[in-house]
């Protein structure tokens, strides 16, 4: 089975390499048959990688510990679901998984563009397959998951078959770990496609807004996955790591945040190119940056170059990644410079108070944030190189920089959509902002009276109220106008309004999700933490809550042993909840891990950790966090995904335009046939 997988990989590499050559030649000579061949190579790439993936899954599910990867990352008693996660539990498998997702994306692009964008396709395939060459070569030559386990002995290397594997890292044995890495990878890998189209537009000199319109959905989908993946990662950290928080500015977290921020900037700035024919260089640069950061993300995560809680093993793939990133940078920057003449703006910025400049500010802040996060993330590497000692910048640095920027972005989330294109007079501003400002002001005063004294929290909630009022006002005013002019009921008007321009109103829903997430962030200032050593009958106070330890148990399962404690939570003299934190010890990997007990309400989470046993007394070490408003972060994430899904639905106007294009394409084909 090892050879089976390796053959799949090397054949996939060959198809990818062929796809690059055929794509470039087909694009250069605008040859239909060569392009067809390149497209088939891209589909074959998918088939061969899929065979490799099947081979690896087969090895995992049959507990074939001859295979080094399976022996290191799986064990017999691992549950069926988590065996699936073994695929991305280690470096070799995750690289194969990355390559597989890439091949799926590319195949989808080929299938969905069989009759469209014929000029863009050959180069787009060439660039995407170029990325495929790198990842399949890396997987085959450097980090091959299909290596046999062998022991060196006097007579050379002898195959070795251990009775059981080392097991999957216990921290990964958690339900959201089944989807978090997949989402993250779908997000990071997916950024390849907009990049490939952007580069293809440069190569073919087709730098109008066609590539932008083609790329929009290919950016939105991975952007959604990446955002969901980041939040799921936070959710996982919150539920598993037991330190009471969901975001720690860990390098690996940052690595996924940076491409997401750059992608967010792109999704906004493309609208200026579509509407006004401006920012062409900026957009093609942003799409490159987003892809670049996605690969940097994989690089930081996989090479262990920066210390991280994710604690992936140090590995030897670093130089290859550095080389690949260098090639990407050189190729994309030279292409952009070569095509500068074709990237001239069709219009100029008319006024500072316009939608365009709103988007522009949003882009600047997002990019400033990207570079601040990048700086903080790679600072340990730089400091090590310059001063020969590693200086880590901790969360205080990031908080100091990122929180104000985040709040400014939040403000723009509300202001931007209310500015008109081209220019907005003071009078229009007054019309639009009077009511939201009044509402936010009232809420701000109420918050002050209620005792909210943390500046950032107050601002999050104040701005959140402002943005929510702006966005909901947009829906309300739009629906009312439609109601008046078309004569529909309010809710049908609301529906038709959104259906007519799904992208705008879906975007508004995403903005509402952002507001909810910021509401969750605002709760951070009111966190309460308490820690105590307890045995049945002991009491502990944390904020308004009283905790009473009732019972403690120990048990054994094939995969792990555990201890748990049952605690009663009392609030205002009344029984509030029962919680049962647990601590597991995984046998295969010989590692302990806490299973946090969380009682969630919309107002706050009661978060209880059984951190271990006190060595002296044998009592349970219980840690409690009261985390206000955390639930809103997850709800906001769900709202964001819903908003993105709405924005992905083709709007009525778009469908009309697509029909027009289709008719034209058919007319052209007929003419060619004559």
């Amino acid at each position: 089975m090892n050879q089976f997988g390796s053959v799949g990989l090397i054949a996939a590499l060959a198809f990818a390499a062929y796809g690059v050559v055929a794509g470039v030649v087909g694009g250069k000579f605008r040859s239909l048959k060569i392009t067809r061949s390149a497209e088939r190579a891209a589909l074959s790439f998918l088939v061969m990688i899929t065979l490799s993936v099947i081979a690896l899954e087969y090895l995992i599910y049959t507990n074939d510990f001859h295979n080094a990867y399976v022996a290191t990352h799986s064990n017999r008693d691992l549950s069926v679901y988590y065996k699936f996660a073994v695929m991305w539990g280690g470096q070799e498998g995750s690289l194969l998984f990355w390559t597989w997702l890439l091949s799926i994306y590319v195949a989808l692009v080929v299938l969905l563009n069989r009759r469209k964008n014929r000029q863009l396709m050959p180069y787009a395939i060439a660039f995407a397959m170029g990325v495929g060459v790198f990842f399949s070569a890396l997987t085959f030559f450097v980090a091959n998951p299909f290596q046999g386990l062998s022991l060196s002995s006097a007579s050379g290397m002898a195959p070795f078959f251990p009775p059981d594997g080392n097991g999957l890292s216990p921290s990964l044995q958690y339900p959201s770990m089944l989807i978090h890495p997949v989402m993250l990878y779908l997000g990071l890998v997916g950024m390849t496609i907009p990049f490939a189209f952007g580069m293809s537009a440069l190569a073919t000199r087709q730098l109008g807004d066609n590539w932008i319109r083609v790329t929009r959905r290919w950016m939105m989908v991975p952007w959604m996955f990446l955002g969901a993946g980041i939040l799921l990662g936070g959710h996982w950290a919150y539920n598993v790591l037991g330190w009471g928080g969901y975001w720690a500015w860990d390098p690996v977290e940052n690595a996924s945040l940076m491409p997401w921020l750059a992608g967010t900037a792109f999704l906004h700035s493309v609208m200026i190119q579509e509407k006004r024919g401006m920012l062409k260089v900026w957009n093609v640069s942003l799409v490159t940056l987003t892809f670049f950061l996605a690969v940097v993300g994989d690089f930081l995560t996989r090479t262990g170059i920066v210390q991280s809680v994710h604690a992936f093993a140090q590995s030897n793939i670093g130089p290859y990644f550095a080389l690949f990133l260098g090639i990407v940078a050189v190729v994309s920057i030279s292409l952009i410079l070569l095509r500068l003449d074709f990237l001239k703006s069709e219009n100029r910025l008319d006024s500072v108070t316009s939608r365009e400049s709103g988007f522009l500010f949003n882009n600047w802040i997002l990019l400033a944030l990207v570079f601040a996060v990048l700086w903080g993330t790679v600072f340990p590497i730089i400091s090590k190189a310059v001063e020969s000692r590693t200086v880590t910048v901790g969360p205080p640095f990031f908080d100091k920089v990122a929180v104000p920027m985040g709040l400014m972005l939040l403000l723009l989330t509300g202001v931007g959509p209310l500015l008109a294109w081209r220019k907005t007079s003071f009078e229009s501003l007054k019309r639009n902002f009077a009511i939201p400002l009044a509402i936010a002001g009232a809420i701000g005063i109420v918050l002050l009276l209620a005792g909210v004294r943390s500046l950032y929290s107050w601002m999050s909630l104040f701005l959140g109220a402002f943005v929510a009022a702006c966005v909901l006002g947009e829906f309300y005013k739009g629906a009312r106008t439609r109601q008046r002019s078309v004569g529909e009921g309010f809710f049908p008007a609301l529906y038709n309004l959104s259906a007519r321009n799904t992208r705008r109103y879906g975007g508004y829903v995403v903005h509402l999700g952002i507001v909810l997430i910021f509401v969750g962030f605002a709760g951070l200032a009111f966190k309460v933490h308490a820690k105590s050593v307890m045995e049945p009958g002991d009491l502990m106070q944390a904020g308004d809550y009283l905790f009473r330890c009732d019972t403690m148990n120990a048990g054994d399962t094939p995969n792990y042993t555990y201890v748990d404690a049952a605690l009663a939570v009392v609030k205002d003299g009344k029984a509030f909840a029962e919680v049962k934190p647990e601590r597991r010890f995984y046998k295969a990997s010989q590692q302990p891990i806490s299973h946090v007990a969380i009682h969630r309400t919309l107002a706050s989470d009661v978060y209880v950790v059984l951190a271990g046993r006190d060595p002296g007394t044998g009592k349970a070490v219980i840690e409690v966090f009261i985390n206000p408003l955390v639930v809103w972060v997850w709800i906001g994430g769900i709202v964001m995904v819903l908003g993105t899904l709405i924005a992905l639905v083709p709007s009525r106007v778009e469908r009309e335009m697509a029909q027009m294009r289709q008719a034209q394409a058919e007319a052209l084909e007929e003419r060619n046939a004559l």
Partner: protein
Amino acid sequence: MILALPFIVAIGLAALVIYPMLSAGDEASASLPVDVTPAADLKRRRMVVYENLRDLDFEYQAKKIAPKDYESLRETYKAEAARLMVASQELDHGTAEDRFIEREVAARRAALRSKVEKQYVCGKCGFENPVPVKFCGECGSPLSKGNDK
């Protein structure tokens, strides 16, 4: 045995990949169709402006935009739409420059023709020689620059 499977699949796929390259006929020499023709691009840009106009109207009705802003924005959009419309029409009947050149050529041809006619009318018999000649094709008398009337 199972090891043969990826080989067989790879070879089969390789054949499929190469196949389009070997095909003869119309397909073989066909080139990729154009994604966006200049006419389609102009039309689409005009549609975008119309869409902007519709949005503007809607936002005005929703009282998001002050009347003064509305008027001036509407004018700019209308002017843009008109410009794109003209550009589309010119593309249909050739560009403005093409038409200028065609007009010039036509004018010069007409001028030349009239000059030719004047120059080669025989002063003696009045015959209109159809081509430039030194002697009249009808009566044989010499044609000089002086005798064109």
